[in-house]
């Protein structure tokens, strides 16, 4: 969240309120809501929009080198401006898209590191494999497990015709375990050559705008974690993590872990 706050050009001290707004924003993705809760989500959503509108106005007055300035200055190919609605959509997507997914991606990758014997040792020996590790975790955990589309025409798949104007749920997480593309799909394989060709960031026009940033954040997190700590393990005998119930997003409610300082890190501390 702090990374995105800075990139957008928002004050870093706002990152906690932004985190709060985006946490609330995704609540309807996973929870059945009472009318009161729906009101609450809507009100907080409007507060986020007003915050972003004010920030965009500020960038129009005082342009800076950041994403929000780029957004308010951007023009279509014919030279026309984006509508306020479009700009707001982008800003909201960037704030919300950057938060839960990346955070859960890191947490669920840590869970995979602990649950798959031998992986941590290999990553300590061969840090270059962290890339494949990250892609395999994105593939197997798919923080955005599925999204909705509306068909614009009849679509035939596997001898079933889906009529036009149907709402379909694209299940990225299921495609990511298709054994025709990923042999032994359930296995976290540090030597999988096509590991990055998963659907965790969707495909085509809606392919995640933040994918390069998310990959960078995940790779750096594990490079640094593995440099400084070792023997990652669960903290308790059982119930070390649980998922937030939900269809679209795959999120961890909590994850309890322990680790020890790596020797190299202790040396630097002493120096």
């Amino acid at each position, binding site marked *: 969240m702090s990374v995105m706050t800075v990139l957008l050009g928002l004050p870093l001290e706002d990152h906690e309120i932004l985190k709060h707004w985006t946490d609330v924003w995704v609540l309807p993705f996973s929870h059945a809501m009472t009318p009161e809760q729906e009101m609450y989500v809507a009100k907080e959503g409007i507060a986020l929009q007003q915050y972003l509108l004010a920030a965009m106005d500020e960038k129009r007055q005082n342009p800076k080198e950041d994403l929000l300035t780029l957004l308010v200055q951007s023009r279509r190919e014919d030279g026309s401006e984006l509508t306020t609605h479009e700009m707001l959509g982008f800003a909201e997507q960037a704030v919300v898209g950057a938060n839960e997914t990346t955070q859960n991606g890191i947490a669920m990758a840590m869970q995979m590191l602990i649950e798959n014997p031998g992986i941590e040792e290999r990553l300590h020996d061969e840090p270059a494999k962290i890339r494949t590790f990250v892609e395999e975790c994105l593939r197997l955990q798919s923080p955005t497990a599925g999204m909705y589309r509306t068909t614009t025409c009849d679509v035939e798949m596997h001898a079933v015709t889906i009529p036009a104007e149907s709402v379909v749920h694209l299940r990225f997480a299921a495609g990511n375990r298709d054994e025709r593309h990923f042999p032994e799909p359930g296995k976290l394989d540090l030597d999988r*050559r096509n590991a990055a060709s998963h659907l965790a960031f969707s495909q085509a026009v809606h392919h995640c705008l933040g994918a390069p940033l998310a990959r960078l954040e995940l790779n750096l997190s594990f490079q640094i974690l593995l440099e400084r700590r070792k023997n990652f393990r669960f903290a308790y005998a059982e119930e070390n993590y649980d998922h937030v119930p939900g269809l679209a997003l795959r999120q961890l409610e909590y994850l309890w872990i322990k680790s020890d300082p790596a020797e190299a890190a202790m040396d630097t501390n002493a120096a």
Partner: protein
Amino acid sequence: MKITIDPALCRSRARCYNLYTDLFREGTDGKGEVIITEDFEDEDLVVDATSAANACPVGAIILEY
């Protein structure tokens, strides 16, 4: 580091050769083509190759090191 593009995965999205012209150029059918096919160690190139692989929407850029 060594870069390869898996031609079976490449969908001609053009990000690699539009963004990282030191490493990639446009090949047939708009597919990406690696310019430096042998191993290299230059740090700037390693950073560019990593960014290119992170940006590829279909995961077609394979890095070995």
